[in-house]
């Protein structure tokens, strides 16, 4: 029987046909239909609309069919939690079947349905199965406890399941022990609490189980052993004794985990003898790992590169086994090269060099480069071998292969840094290859060498001159080196021609460059040379600190952390686990969200209920519901706050964070119909609109909480799926554009950049990048774009508070939106002036603007503090004679250095504050009044 036919492409009406077949009374036909559904599910087709039909097949004697239905159920229970509850009765019944396979199947499956309501029903069957006579059922139930804990931890503790799990560690069946251990470890991870502490009693049991259980169980136990706190050296010895034989296992995971335990214990024992003996036992098994497939080799090599850094003696004599094979994959070769460098010693360097030289003549450019670098690194770290390394490098330069020569020049520069004034005899040979250098790093290295040895190279000036011809076109790295090298040359050989050269370079580096580093360095040299050439010599030609090869050395703290994580992904990435592990869990469906979800699942439920009597009729309705459910889900999700309902947008132009009323108002005007595409309209209309709104109302607070408290700027159709919330804010003394981007489109979005149109304040982004990185579909990101004053962006004409913004993305093109500029963030911290200046300015300015604000101030001191908080500074406060009023003289500076002057007159406890305003930009009055008002209320 060939099942591959199920993968044939979808025909029209296939779903309909499937529904009929699923309802068929003929069992083989039914089974065939379920298989087709599973095949469709595998290739990623959405067959969730068949949920009720498939679940109807669940009550069957046929185990094969039951398994298939359960498989479907696990896959779709997440999206149809409501319907999954329908299956509970069958689970409970199945968990009491005489056939242990069915009991286990039921327990396994129902743990995968993450609906908190279902867990109540789960507890009794689970309790029974944990005590089942059949070990197969018990081991399945053990895992189920971990599943349940993830959904509802309280329930697990209340029902005493944790204690039952701990008891299972003494089960007679090793598979049950392994699963109980794994479940406890998992629960420990989820809860962060210590539910499994290894006592010395348990240690003994675990060590005993080590010999009994499967290879996978052995890995679990070995990994658990690492966390055991040994009491003394004896303890450690005892453990290692039991663990050492595991190093002979065929499974590389067992070998590495065993090695991890031994390495851990090596840190614990004091005896040199023991460490030595264990080291010796570890070498051959580690080498044997290199006989495995390249994938396994790769993991072993990444781990070995950590081990040799901590315990170099273990593999000190084995450098030969790390020699690259002709057909090793490149990722294996690169790792082997690193380890060869680490193991290179004066004893084996000849052999190693011979290999490197061979690799440097291979085809793969990256590998060749790395091999050349390796020679340089050996030279830097092994003083006695440096001469031999250099002669190999010179031989390689003779091959004239372009990238080999360039790489060799780079490493020779490092060798010169390490051993100053020792090997300059080879400079002549390097100089013969100047014309082949075209990569910046190689060029920069060569220029550095010429500058450093300018006094020993007869034609150093000519050589530098040839490089200088292309000075303006070079990269910054080369320009900087050229500048320094010329200065060195000048200090060593101040001839006339060199004098001309230096003038040329200095003027080019100061006048004709945009690079501040280059310019500043040139100015420093210029001043040094013009004030005190002798001091310049002391500075520029000073001895440099000696370098060491630390390019592959890890920080001791990191190495220590990674050694404890040998044989984990951390040891492959060479990063501590917390940098990449994120415990993301699937949300548990609560009854509330179910209620919300029910609104759009309405028709499905109806169809399910109607299924038995009206298969034919129900089909189109359910299909239509499936179509309409997509946009509605959308509506409930990211876009809820925005104008995915176009009608809502004008009604609430600057949707404030608390603007739920507005929003729902908007929805009232156009209940969903506006959002649903025309094709789905009839289906949406068929649904009860009030129910739909009820669903919205329930879901809205949740969505509002999830969205940031920023007004929406972009969304809906205009946003092509992207929703942007944002506002100008003042953060740490700067104006920033706080942005929050939700990517609701189907593609990953990156390269977001921001630009603004000319505006009344000269606001412009200081850095155009919106640093949200790459946003995968469904992802969100926040960024603060710093804004700076740019006179070029200053709009002429009367001030207005509009800001036109454009944002581009690599994938979706450019978006535009209009934003309002709030004045508050534009008021600057240091914007105060002294009283005299205030008076002078007040007098000099024309007629003020006045407004009466209807606020009541009871406490003037508090009011002053509040004004200060928005960067409006009170310069003077005095009572106005004869009126009982207080007068406050207030100033502030608006972004772009516009001083604003205010006089406030108020009567304590009486409503009404008279504010007079004067500024060179009188048109700001209204905005400033608004700030004063909001700060005082």
């Amino acid at each position, binding site marked *: 029987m060939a099942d591959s036919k199920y993968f044939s492409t979808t025909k029209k009406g296939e779903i309909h046909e499937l529904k009929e077949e699923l309802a068929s009374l003929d069992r083989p036909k039914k089974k065939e239909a379920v298989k087709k559904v599973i095949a469709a599910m*595998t290739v*990623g087709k959405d067959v969730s609309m068949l949920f009720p039909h498939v679940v109807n097949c669940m009550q069957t004697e046929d185990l094969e069919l039951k398994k298939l239905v359960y498989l479907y159920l696990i896959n779709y229970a997440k999206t149809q939690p409501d319907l999954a509850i329908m299956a509970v009765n069958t689970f409970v019944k199945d968990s009491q079947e005489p056939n242990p396979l069915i009991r286990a199947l039921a327990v396994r499956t129902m743990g995968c349905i993450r609906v908190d309501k279902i867990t109540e029903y789960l507890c009794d069957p689970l309790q029974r199965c944990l005590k089942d006579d059949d070990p197969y059922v018990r081991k399945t139930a053990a895992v189920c406890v971990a599943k349940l804990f993830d959904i509802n931890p309280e329930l697990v503790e209340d029902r005493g399941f944790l204690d039952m799990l701990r008891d299972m560690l003494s089960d007679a069946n090793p598979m049950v022990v392994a699963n109980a251990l*794994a479940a406890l470890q998992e629960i420990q991870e989820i809860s962060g609490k210590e539910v499994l502490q290894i006592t010395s009693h348990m240690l003994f049991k675990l060590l005993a189980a080590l010999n009994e259980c499967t290879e996978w169980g052995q890995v679990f136990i070995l990994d658990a052993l690492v966390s055991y706190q040994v009491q003394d050296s004896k303890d450690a010895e005892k453990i290692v004794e039991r663990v050492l034989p595991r190093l002979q296992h065929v499974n590389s995971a067992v070998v590495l985990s065993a090695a991890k335990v031994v390495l851990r214990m090596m840190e614990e024992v004091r005896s040199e003898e023991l460490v030595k003996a264990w080291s010796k036992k570890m070498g051959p098994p580690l080498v044997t790992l290199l006989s495995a497939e390249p994938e396994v080799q790769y*993991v072993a090599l990444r781990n070995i590169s950590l081990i040799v850094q901590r315990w170099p003696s273990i593999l000190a004599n084995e450098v030969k086994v790390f020699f690259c094979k002709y057909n090793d994959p490149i990722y294996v070769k690169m790792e082997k090269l690193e380890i060869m460098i680490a193991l290179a010693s004066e004893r084996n360097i000849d052999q190693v060099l011979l290999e490197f030289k061979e690799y440097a003549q291979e085809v793969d450019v990256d590998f060749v480069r790395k091999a050349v670098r390796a020679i340089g690194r050996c030279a830097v770290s092994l003083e006695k071998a440096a001469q031999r390394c250099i002669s190999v490098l010179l031989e390689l330069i003779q091959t004239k292969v372009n990238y080999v020569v360039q790489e060799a020049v780079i490493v020779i520069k490092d060798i010169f840094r390490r051993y100053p004034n020792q090997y300059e005899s080879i400079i002549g040979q390097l100089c013969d290859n100047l014309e082949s250098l075209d990569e910046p790093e190689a060029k920069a290295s060569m220029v550095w060498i010429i500058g450093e040895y300018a006094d020993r190279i007869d034609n150093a000036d000519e050589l530098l001159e040839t490089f200088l011809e292309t000075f303006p076109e070079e990269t910054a790295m080369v320009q900087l080196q050229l500048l320094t090298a010329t200065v060195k040359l000048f200090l060593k050989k101040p001839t006339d021609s060199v004098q001309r050269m230096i003038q040329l370079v200095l003027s080019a580096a100061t006048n004709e460059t945009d690079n501040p580093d280059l310019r500043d360095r040139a100015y420093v040299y210029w001043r040094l040379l013009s004030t005190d050439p002798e001091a310049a010599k002391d500075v520029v030609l000073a001895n440099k600190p000696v370098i060491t090869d630390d390019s592959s050395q890890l920080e001791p703290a990191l190495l220590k952390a990674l050694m404890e994580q040998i044989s*984990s992904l951390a040891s492959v990435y060479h990063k501590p686990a917390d940098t*990449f592990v*994120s415990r993301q869990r699937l949300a548990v469906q609560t009854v509330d969200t179910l209620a919300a979800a029910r609104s759009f699942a309405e028709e499905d439920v109806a169809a399910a209920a109607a299924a038995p009597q009206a298969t034919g009729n129900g089909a189109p309705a359910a299909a239509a519901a499936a179509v309409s459910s997509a946009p509605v889900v959308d509506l409930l999700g990211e876009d809820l706050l925005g104008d995915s309902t176009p009608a809502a947008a004008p009604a609430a132009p600057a949707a404030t964070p608390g603007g739920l009323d507005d929003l729902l108002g908007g929805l009232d005007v156009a209940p969903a119909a506006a959002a649903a595409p025309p094709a789905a309209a009839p289906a949406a209309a068929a649904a009860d609109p009030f129910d739909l709104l009820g669903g919205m109302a329930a879901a809205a607070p949740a969505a509002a909480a999830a969205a940031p408290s920023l007004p929406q700027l972009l969304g809906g159709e205009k946003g092509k799926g992207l929703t942007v919330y944002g506002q100008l804010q003042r953060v740490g003394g700067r104006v920033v554009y706080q942005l929050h981007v939700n990517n609701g489109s189907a593609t990953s979005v990156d390269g977001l950049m921001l630009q603004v149109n000319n505006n009344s304040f000269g606001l412009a982004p200081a850095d155009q990048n919106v640093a949200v990185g790459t946003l995968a579909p469904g992802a969100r990101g926040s960024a603060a774009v710093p804004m700076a004053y740019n006179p070029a962006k200053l709009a002429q004409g009367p001030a207005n508070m509009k800001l036109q913004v454009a944002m581009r993305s690599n994938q979706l093109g450019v978006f535009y939106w209009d934003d309002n500029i709030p004045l508050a963030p534009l008021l600057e911290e240091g914007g105060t002036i002294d009283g005299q200046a205030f008076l002078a300015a007040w007098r000099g300015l024309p007629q003020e603007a006045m407004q009466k604000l209807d606020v009541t101030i009871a406490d003037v001191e508090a009011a002053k503090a509040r004004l200060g908080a928005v960067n409006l500074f009170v310069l003077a406060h005095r009572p106005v004679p004869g009126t009982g009023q207080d007068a406050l003289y207030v100033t502030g500076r608006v972004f772009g250095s516009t001083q604003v002057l205010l006089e406030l007159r108020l009567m304590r406890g009486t409503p009404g504050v008279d504010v007079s305003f004067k500024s060179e930009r009188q048109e700001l009055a209204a905005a400033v009044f608004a700030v004063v008002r909001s700060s005082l209320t």
Partner: protein
Amino acid sequence: MISQFFILSPRGDVIIRRDYLGNVPKTSTETFFRTSKFYKAGDEAPPIFLVDGVSYLSVKDGGVHLVATTRDNVSPSFVLEFLKRISIIIKDYCGSISEEAIRKNFPLIYELLDELLDYGLTQNTSTEALKTFVLNEPTVVAPPASLKPLFGLSKGPTGVFKSVLDTNRTDGKRRDEIYVDVVERLAVTFNAAGHAISSQIDGSIQVKSYLAGNPPLKIKLNDDLLITRRDGSGYAGGGGYGGGSGFSAGDYAADSSLVILDDVNFHEVADLSAFDTERCISLVPPDGEFALANYRTSHALRLPFRLSIATEADPASDHKALVRLRLWCDVPADKAASGLEVELPLPGHVARVHCEVDAPGSAALAGWEFSDKTHLLRWRFKKVLGGMDLSMRARLTLTKPFGASLRTEVGPVNLKFTIPMFSASRISLKYLQIMRKDRNYNPQRWVRYVTSSNSYTFRT
């Protein structure tokens, strides 16, 4: 814990997919395929990589990718070994692993996965024990011709592609058989002077059992087998399997009658109580394929090929050069390499190549080819008998005049071959006994040896 497991076809289509924890997006299948296909600078992607906090671990077998994803700091070897194990189980149940085999058996594979993994935790992985839980009948598929190894193990009488379920389900064709293969892969590097500067064998004793009722077996290896483990004071028998001799292996090495292994590990079914004294392994073989032992050695190998190479200028034209290769096959005359490929990288300034071959009649030359893109010159031979002597000449047309550096730019020469019934380490099975007291019970026993090249390189 494993979040998802999926199998992708060579084109990236999903053919099997299971999600265990639901904490990795569904699009992970595409993310994996894109990342591994377009890894940086066209390099082959490593078997483990991290994208957006999700680790992808994969192995490739039979043209399909078996992939596991996780967000945890799992043991990577554990996951890779487990993926390899899944691929073996699929082979055991479906006869072979390939896109076709998986598509034809997908309900069976889902059944197996149900038992293999629960909530991302590894469960039962023995082919034997899994039989209890599967109900679907397998559709046995032989691997497509294109996926057979170059000079396949599939050739000869032992190329078996059958399901373990055949032995007890399909009564009609049921046949008891057991296969024991000694598979050795050679990694040898010769220096320019023709001396082997490094040589190693990675060997494995593979057992594939289709015996009903799983009777115990007894396997005896060479008496003159010595297992050494380096421990500072030269070589000495150690680690328990070393034969407990007081001699140092240095003495033995000179005596070429000994077979010396550097390290060996055994499958957990192996009972080694009689191994130290008699070199006997007793075992009850589980169903399906497994490695009874893996070993490696760098001692006294029988190297099957030697080669000499010379590059010289053509006196007639300075834009031409001549490369001469001579290859000796050093295996006994009754053995033969079933397929040989000689690969010679040439420098970029070689424009054209013309080849002539001098070989005894039976070593039929299957052809030669030169690729402009990879600059590789390849000769292929169908069958090379022991003792044969092959000469190849390649006339190169150069785009720049001949220079002495050409000599080092030609090469290294890489050989690919498979030699059936030959073990480079000289390890052998003295007998294979099936311990069942039944005179009429005489199942087919297949024992064979094969040595193939892992990396067999002559530097120039």
